[in-house]
């Protein structure tokens, strides 16, 4: 029973992290019509920056805050120097150019930090188990991830739906020329949105860092999950990304935790131990396949552009 | 006894709260040239989209040559003999005029799951393409890429492509759109010739052309039919005048 609760929370935590990543991706895609494969690289940079700054300052919170700032800055510089020239072009161009960026970042990280990964140790006060229910304990850090992610999600909702900036963002998503004609500095808006996306990716990266190792190529694996989430959740829809991310996070975590045992009850032991890992990995993609068959536009597609 | 080639019954199409097609019923008789007119926003394009299969109606039926085609996708309707031209020119821009027409002919000359023989060397297709191009007067421009044709020539090519599919009914969506005076006259003359071989349903804004060509006219306002009849009847219809023709339109007779 405890295991189930723990895995449910793990699934929620993973899902929320995926949401942060997917939200940034779908924001940039929705508003600037820009496919950013290097989003995963920003996630990686968030983690590497965090590991470096925390070690440098000796303070977890300060180091993470600096990492967030650094990733935001990196995103803005990237947009300003390279990516803004690609707006309006074919999506294939975006894919290729940002693919080139991934290669560049992976090698740049290898050059600066070396091929071995980094570790980001947690401060003492975050490693204690917290009692969330009578008799049920959950690591403080994972709990804080959930809280921070929920907070950020709520903030995103408020900003996008309830503020003037948010209105500009939503308007920009439907009609870019119009926004420009209204005298809004669309270049600045796009840069800010891209920065926001980068910050979200960096935040996801640095929060995940103490739990997984910080290593080269960590961005690519999770980026694909973000894609799957966007497809399942629905194009351009942040709400859809949220639902799908939680869903995917849960299915993936619970699947990996319980599927092997479930299979062992049905199949022979050897068959189960071969099939289980394969099936667990496939689960998300099977889900995506089902959504594609039943509702190709996604489960919660945004309003028509 | 005149045969109904196309029969539309109580067609309804809504977009959220907006009723774009409002219980629309009409028919097209085999051999006639039937024009659809109406002010902007009357739902002409929505009607055409439902006839060609790009849009599905909420309710109502469409019968073509006796068959219920209401739920059929566009490529199936083409196979049954329903051809269309597009209001906004829709051609294969990187191909030549002849290639465009040949592909249309190919679609109706056996299957296309042939992977080996060079299709551009198929005599029958090339000849059919040239015939269709000659019909619209584009035979000298056969090997010109579409991107290099003038707007008027592209409109004519749209017609040739539709003809190459050997249609029973030709649905023309504003064939005069964007044409200058000379080009319009050419198009009207062309349509006068074509009507002898194929039933035509025409959506048009160019009133001169409509009254010069049509056997019957259906007037659409707010997604519904307010009048249907011979050109003279329509010209003299009070409701139509008020809704569409207006006092400032001087409608002259064409013999």
């Amino acid at each position: 029973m405890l295991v189930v609760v723990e895995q449910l929370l793990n699934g929620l935590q993973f899902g929320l992290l995926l949401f942060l990543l997917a939200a940034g991706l779908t924001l940039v895609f929705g508003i600037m019509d820009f496919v950013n494969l290097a989003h995963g690289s920003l996630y990686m940079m968030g983690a590497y920056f965090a590991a470096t700054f925390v070690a440098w300052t000796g303070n977890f919170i300060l180091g993470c805050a600096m990492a967030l700032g650094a990733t935001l800055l990196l995103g803005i510089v990237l947009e300003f120097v390279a990516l803004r020239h690609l707006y309006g072009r074919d999506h294939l161009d975006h894919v290729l150019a940002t693919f080139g960026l991934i290669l560049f970042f992976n090698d740049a990280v290898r050059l600066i930090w070396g091929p071995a990964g980094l570790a980001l140790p947690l401060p003492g006060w975050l490693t204690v188990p917290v009692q969330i229910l009578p008799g049920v304990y959950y690591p403080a850090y994972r709990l804080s991830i959930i809280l921070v992610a929920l907070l950020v999600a709520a903030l995103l909702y408020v900003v996008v739906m309830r503020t003037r900036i948010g209105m500009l963002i939503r308007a920009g998503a439907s009609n870019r020329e119009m926004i420009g004609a209204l005298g809004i500095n669309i270049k600045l808006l796009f840069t800010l949105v891209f920065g926001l996306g980068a910050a979200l990716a960096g935040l996801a990266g640095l929060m995940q860092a103490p739990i997984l190792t910080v290593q080269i190529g960590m961005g690519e694996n999770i980026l694909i999950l973000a894609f799957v989430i966007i497809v399942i959740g629905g194009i351009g829809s942040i709400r859809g990304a949220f639902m799908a991310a939680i869903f995917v996070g849960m299915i993936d975590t619970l699947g990996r935790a319980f599927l092997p045992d479930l299979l062992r009850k049905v199949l022979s032991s050897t068959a189960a131990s071969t099939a289980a890992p394969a099936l667990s990995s496939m689960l998300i993609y099977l889900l995506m396949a089902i959504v594609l068959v039943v509702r190709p536009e996604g489960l919660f597609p945004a309003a028509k552009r | 006894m005149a045969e109904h080639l196309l029969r539309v019954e109580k067609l309804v199409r809504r977009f959220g709260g907006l009723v774009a097609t409002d219980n629309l019923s009409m028919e097209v008789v085999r051999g006639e040239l039937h024009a659809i007119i109406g002010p902007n926003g009357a739902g002409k394009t929505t009607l055409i989209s439902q006839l060609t299969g790009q849009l599905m109606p909420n309710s109502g039926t469409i019968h073509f040559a006796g068959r219920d085609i209401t739920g059929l996708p566009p490529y199936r309707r083409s196979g049954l003999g329903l051809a269309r031209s597009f209001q906004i020119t829709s051609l294969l821009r990187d191909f030549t005029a002849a290639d465009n027409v040949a592909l249309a002919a190919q679609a109706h000359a056996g299957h296309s799951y042939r992977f080996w023989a060079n299709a551009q060397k198929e005599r029958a297709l090339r000849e059919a393409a040239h015939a269709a191009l000659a019909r619209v007067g584009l035979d000298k421009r056969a090997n010109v890429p579409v991107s290099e044709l003038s707007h008027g020539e592209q409109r004519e090519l749209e017609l040739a492509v539709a003809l190459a599919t050997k249609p029973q009914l030709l649905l023309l969506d504003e064939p005069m759109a964007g044409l200058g005076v000379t080009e319009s006259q050419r198009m009207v003359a062309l349509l006068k010739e074509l009507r002898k071989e194929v039933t035509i349903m025409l959506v048009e804004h160019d009133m001169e052309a409509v009254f010069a060509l049509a056997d019957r006219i259906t007037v659409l306002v707010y997604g519904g039919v307010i009048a249907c009849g011979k050109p003279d009847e329509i010209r003299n219809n009070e409701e139509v005048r008020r809704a569409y023709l207006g006092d400032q339109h001087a409608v002259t007779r064409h013999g």
Partner: protein
Amino acid sequence: MKSALNLRNVVAALVIAGLVLLPVYSALTGKVFILTMFTRIVILALAAASLNLIMGYGGMMSFGHAAYLGIGGYAVGILAFEGIGSGFIQWPVALIASALFALVIGALSLRTRGVYFIMITLAFAQMAYYIASSLSRYGADDGLTIYKRSNFGSLVDLSDRTQFYYVCLACLLGGLYLIWRVVNSRFGLVVQGVRSNEQRMQAIGFHANRYRLVCFVISGTICGLAGALLANNTDFVSPAVMYWTRSGDLMVMVILGGMGTLFGPVIGAIVFLVLEELLSQVTEYWALIMGPLLLLIVLFARGGIMGLLGRFSRG
């Protein structure tokens, strides 16, 4: 009618001649590594050509083509592992497995368009990667060693480097010829038409997605052959061959060479892989140069090398 003796065709002819004579050069100079390097290049050129079929002619931007390299490779590897060493069985299995995978993935993915198609093909290819990584019987992440190359009896000995190279080259040239015929056939014209204007093609009577799917399957099958060749070349197969960056590499080869041209993928494969080889001898961090280079190519040379040659020959 364009003269056949234009710059593009001349370059293509020269490249083919060079590839045919390569083993002679290698034997004369004693540089064996050139032969092995170009065997790999020829195989990946075939893979790139198969991708060009759906990308350049079909307009389907698939970011998951490396999956077929893996499927073809694992077909050979798994059968070899289980004691079936005959190429007459392994290679057809590789082709059929690739075709089936393409059929299923294609049917699902083609329900989407544009960037979603890119994402979904990427996701499915990564799924194949993860499945292969979890096959503990067949080496999982560490991969599977193939102790004996595909056996074709007295027909040809694949363990002989030169014979193997010529088999690969024959597959490449045969594949290009097949693609050339398909592209100019009735089927090929429909596929190109669907890429150009799907709405128009539907209106004249073609079921667009069905043609796309068949094209997708043909492409995957050809790439499966490349996968079987690749496994033989390295005497090894692992999930890494399907990692999504490999799909990206294939895409780059197609774009670099000139998407939608027949010979472009070959040029693209040669340039990309030779460049990769040269750069990695200069620095360990060759991606630092390759990455921005890609960006520049996208910005300024989208027609690829064949595109540039085409522009030069028009004067």
